[in-house]
């Protein structure tokens, strides 16, 4: 079994074990924590081969899954420079989420942990799937535990929120399923690698209309999952109602499924449609950046504010991808990781605040830095990472994305950079009203972070510093993978010309015949 398959399977095994455990026991926590930690350490073995050449798929498993000549579905997984860090981000964040869940989930912890591991299993398979049908299956598998986590462990409005979240994202994925099936009927395969070989060799070809329709079908799923403005209205409610460990994973990992899909499938499988759409998607992304930032500005609830801020940053990633430039794509992938780390830390620390105060309304806070200096310091670092202070992680990603945007259209960079200013405004204003100012009576006695609270925070902060200061440990495999994707995208321009050429000849011949 390849390292990748083992990484994906370990959480599933953990999930099965937890299901067999008695209801009230600490064993569930140890199993979940152990399984996610083992998965993390195993996944580290993916790094060396991917570092050697990020453009190739390594650690490949390729077996027939459903032996049906009509629907040849394969179990085909592999990892390249793009998926590598996303897989590692997931395996890195899961032990942290499990650790956080232990103190933040009061009842039915065992069930929650089981969902967490099932979620990890689904997401890891999504990031490594190279067969489109398999990709779809795990795309849905990852959704179900998240839906259940929101629906059973969420806040007071969890019922309608979870339903909205589920129906909304299902709607997108059904369109994607239809597109996948149609793509199969055209190309005769579900296998991504096979398809790409077909396209680059010229053996397979999609007409302009086919590309546009398929692009839109996939785009529906990815745009809702990310989400892209104006398909975002499920996000603030879901993020706010979800229990904090689930919110962490929603923002840090699940949102990346959408942007990952855009980068992996949309721009390579349907290159011409992607090029045609790039302009419009980029504009939607820029609207999303500014719109979400302006909405974050006036939110009275911390969690909701961070939810909107996350939306703003995710729009940066979309913008980066659809600049279709090297810097933009590199920045997008890097920001996927950086945003994952910083937003997870932000929600984790916000969870500690909720635990202490019992509320996340900004008005209920004030002067928290006096009784809890440790929490205030950790929050400050994370906040600055999130608003893009150089030397911390997000800056690199946003800088590269904006630079890519500036290459394509300087006005895009101008508008999008406005989002960078606004992020400082709303985050600092929130920080001032919660941690600074004179302390109120209710806040004065709240405890600072204890050792077990620090345990998940410290690795996150160290990673933020590492990402921001020694970027080149992460960037080379990303660059090689994105440059391959972009080449595949650009190469298609030539065969579009070829595609049109025979057609015009054909029409001319028909005319002559008459």
């Amino acid at each position, binding site marked *: 079994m390849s390292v990748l398959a083992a990484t994906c399977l370990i959480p599933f095994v953990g999930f099965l074990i937890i299901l067999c455990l008695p209801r009230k026991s600490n064993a569930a926590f140890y199993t979940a924590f152990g399984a996610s930690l083992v998965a993390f350490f195993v996944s580290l073995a993916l790094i060396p081969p991917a570092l050697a050449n990020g453009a190739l798929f390594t650690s490949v498993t390729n077996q027939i899954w459903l032996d049906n000549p009509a629907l040849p579905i394969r179990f085909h997984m592999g990892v390249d420079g793009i998926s590598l860090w996303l897989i590692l981000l997931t395996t890195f964040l899961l032990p942290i989420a499990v650790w956080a869940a232990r103190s933040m989930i009061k009842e039915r912890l065992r069930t929650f942990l089981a969902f967490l591991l099932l979620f990890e299993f689904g997401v890891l398979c999504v990031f490594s799937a190279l067969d489109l049908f398999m990709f779809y299956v795990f795309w849905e598998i990852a959704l179900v535990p998240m839906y259940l986590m929101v629906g059973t462990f969420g806040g007071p409005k969890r019922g309608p929120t979870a339903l*909205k979240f589920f129906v*909304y994202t299902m709607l997108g994925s059904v369109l994607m399923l239809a597109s996948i099936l149609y793509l199969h009927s055209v190309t005769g395969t579900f296998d991504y690698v096979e398809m790409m070989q077909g396209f680059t060799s010229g053996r397979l070809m999609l007409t302009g209309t086919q590309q546009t329709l398929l692009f839109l079908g996939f785009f529906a799923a990815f745009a809702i999952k990310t989400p892209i403005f*104006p398909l*975002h*209205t*499920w996000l603030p409610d879901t993020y706010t109602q979800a229990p904090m460990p689930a919110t962490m994973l929603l923002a840090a990992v699940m949102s990346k499924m959408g942007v990952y899909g855009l980068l992996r499938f949309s721009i390579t499988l349907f290159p011409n449609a992607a090029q045609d759409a790039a302009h419009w998607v980029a504009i939607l992304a820029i609207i999303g950046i500014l*719109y979400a930032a*302006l*909405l974050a*500005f*006036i939110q009275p609830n911390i969690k909701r504010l961070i939810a909107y801020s996350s939306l703003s940053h995710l729009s940066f990633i979309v913008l980066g991808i659809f600049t279709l*430039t*090297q*810097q933009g794509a*590199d*920045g997008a992938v890097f920001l996927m990781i950086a945003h994952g780390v910083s937003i997870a830390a932000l929600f984790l620390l916000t969870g500690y605040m909720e635990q202490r105060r019992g509320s996340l309304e900004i008005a209920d806070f004030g*002067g928290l*830095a*006096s009784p809890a200096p440790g929490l205030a310091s950790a929050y400050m670092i994370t906040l*600055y990472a999130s608003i893009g*202070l*150089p*030397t911390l992680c997000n800056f*690199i990603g946003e*800088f*590269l994305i*904006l*630079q890519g945007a*500036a*290459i394509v259209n*300087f006005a895009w*960079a*101008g508008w999008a*950079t*406005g989002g*960078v*200013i606004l992020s*400082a*405004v709303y985050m*600092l*204003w929130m920080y*001032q009203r919660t*941690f*600074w*100012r*004179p*302390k109120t009576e209710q806040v004065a006695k709240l405890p600072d972070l204890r050792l077990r609270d620090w345990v998940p925070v410290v690795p996150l902060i160290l990673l933020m510093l590492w990402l921001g*200061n*020694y*970027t*080149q440990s992460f*960037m*080379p495999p990303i*660059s090689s993978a994105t440059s391959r994707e972009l080449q595949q995208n650009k190469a298609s321009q030539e065969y579009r010309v070829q595609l049109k050429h025979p057609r015009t000849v054909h029409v001319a011949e028909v005319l002559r015949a008459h």
Partner: protein
Amino acid sequence: MHLWLIPIFPLAGFVINGLFGRRMPKALVSLFGVGSVALSLGYVCYALSQLWPLTTPFTGHYYTWLQSGFLQVGFDLTVDRLTAVMLLIITGVGLLIHIYSIGYMGHESGYDRFFTFFNLFVFFMLILVLASNLLLLFVGWEGVGLCSYLLVGFYYHDNYSSYSANKAMIVNRIGDFGFLLGIFLVLITFHTLDFSKMAAELSTMPVETGAGILTMICLLLLAGSTGKSAQIPLYVWLPDAMAGPTPVSALIHAATMVTAGVYMIARLSFLYNHTPVAMEVVAIIGVITAAFSATIGLAQHDIKKVYAYSTISQLGYMFLGVGIGAYSAGVFHLMTHAFFKALLFLGAGSVIHALAGEQDLRRMGGLRKKMPITFVTLLCASLAISGVPYFSAYFSKDAILSAAYSHSLWMFWVGAVTAGVTSFYVFRAFFLAFFGTYRGHEHAHESSWVMTAPLIVLAVLSVGGGYIPVMSWLSLGFGPAAHENTIAMDISVACGILGIVIAWLFYIVRPSLAPAFTRAIGPVYTLVFNKYYVDELNHNAIVRPLKAISDVVLWRGVDEALIDGVGVNGMGRLIRSWGGLLRWFQSGSVRNYGTWVLIGSLLAIFVFGLVGGVR
């Protein structure tokens, strides 16, 4: 030569004090805090003596920070003559202010936090001036902004301090907007961010293709400078930044950080020299800021606010200097300003410390006898800033004004009159604090030697700093300085001395003159006293509308009502109503199904008949 050692000491101090400071005794905190800067100064001196005479820049390549596409950014540090001057100012003046802080902050809680942030500031400031590419400079730029934010908000439990910290950061971010766009444009134009490679690219670039884009780059970067160096229109944060502890005002908001904008323009002089338009804009912003903020300084009661507006005004002079191409004069004034303005603030701090936090000039007075050392040193600083002959600013400010005289006469006259206004308000504060009778309640006393020793050293530098041959040292990079113009110098000195005399008349000879005068010009005084209502204007014209639009239009209107209400839930309703219609078809009653089958068959026959039957 290991240039990375220069910033590494303050970074180490930051890490040690940041992690363990809370559990360490104060003496140890001070040792790491002050010692790290001292080591850094020592290493700067050693490095410069090794690199002497520094005719070619020395660069150390350390590691590749970021590579993507054609973008390649290294962690590379460079020392040239301009950087050498800045390094000595930062570590030298920085060390003095660190020592002073031992005394000033001694009784404050959060002593370790103060030194932690102070060391971090020195680290980032050193990165800023050592950076050999624009992105690393931006790292330092943002880093010093962060430290400024943290230190202005040092008294975070205070409403005003926390507000001021936010304001400083956010206004600077607005400037960074321009800075970032400038960086992007540089990258698109030159495909590199290294200063040396940019200069090389520029020399081969045809003038016609470059002119427009270079002007754009320079103006965007200028926007960044106006934020950091508190120039119009982004000067509004600096007066409020005085909410931080006084050593912070001295080091960050007078001597070093706020000069970063001037430094950047001087660093990019090879770019600015190609764009006369941008240069002119720099000079105009500088001269207008100098005059504008000097008038506000006239009517402030808070001693630190007086000096804050004076800082903005002096930075305006530096902008004027670099804007008219007198880069070495601008940097020279940057240096002398670092001496006398740091001294002014530290002296003010000494007074504030003695009066248990009192900053209002109306409750000072007569401190001359009680605080002799502070009195004498502040006198030196006040004389220096007024441009009295042979004091430091006499050489530096008049070098700028001489250059302005030959560049554009109106700029010179505005500058010269402003020099008079400057000496008036500086001496107004000086007389109000040290002469007359004491109007407060505290028992004033002279500060301890930890605080007075740095005052004395800075006083010596403020008096004699003009004899340091900075202009000829920098002539290597910026070309020889313009000849001194005696007429220009005489006029500005006359203005300066006139200002002192009027202040002396108003506040010593006939103290009743000042209130009578303010009454006579009533509305004008109110306008100036309220800082021309710029803060109120910004609040009502920008902040409030933005909030209202976000809240009412975007959140309640677009997000909840339009997209979610009409769009998403509307879709839901639509589906439900269609579902209702379909439910009608699936009633479960056989008779109904029969009816539908019949209707369907008839319809099919009809349609096929219409199109000509099935073939």
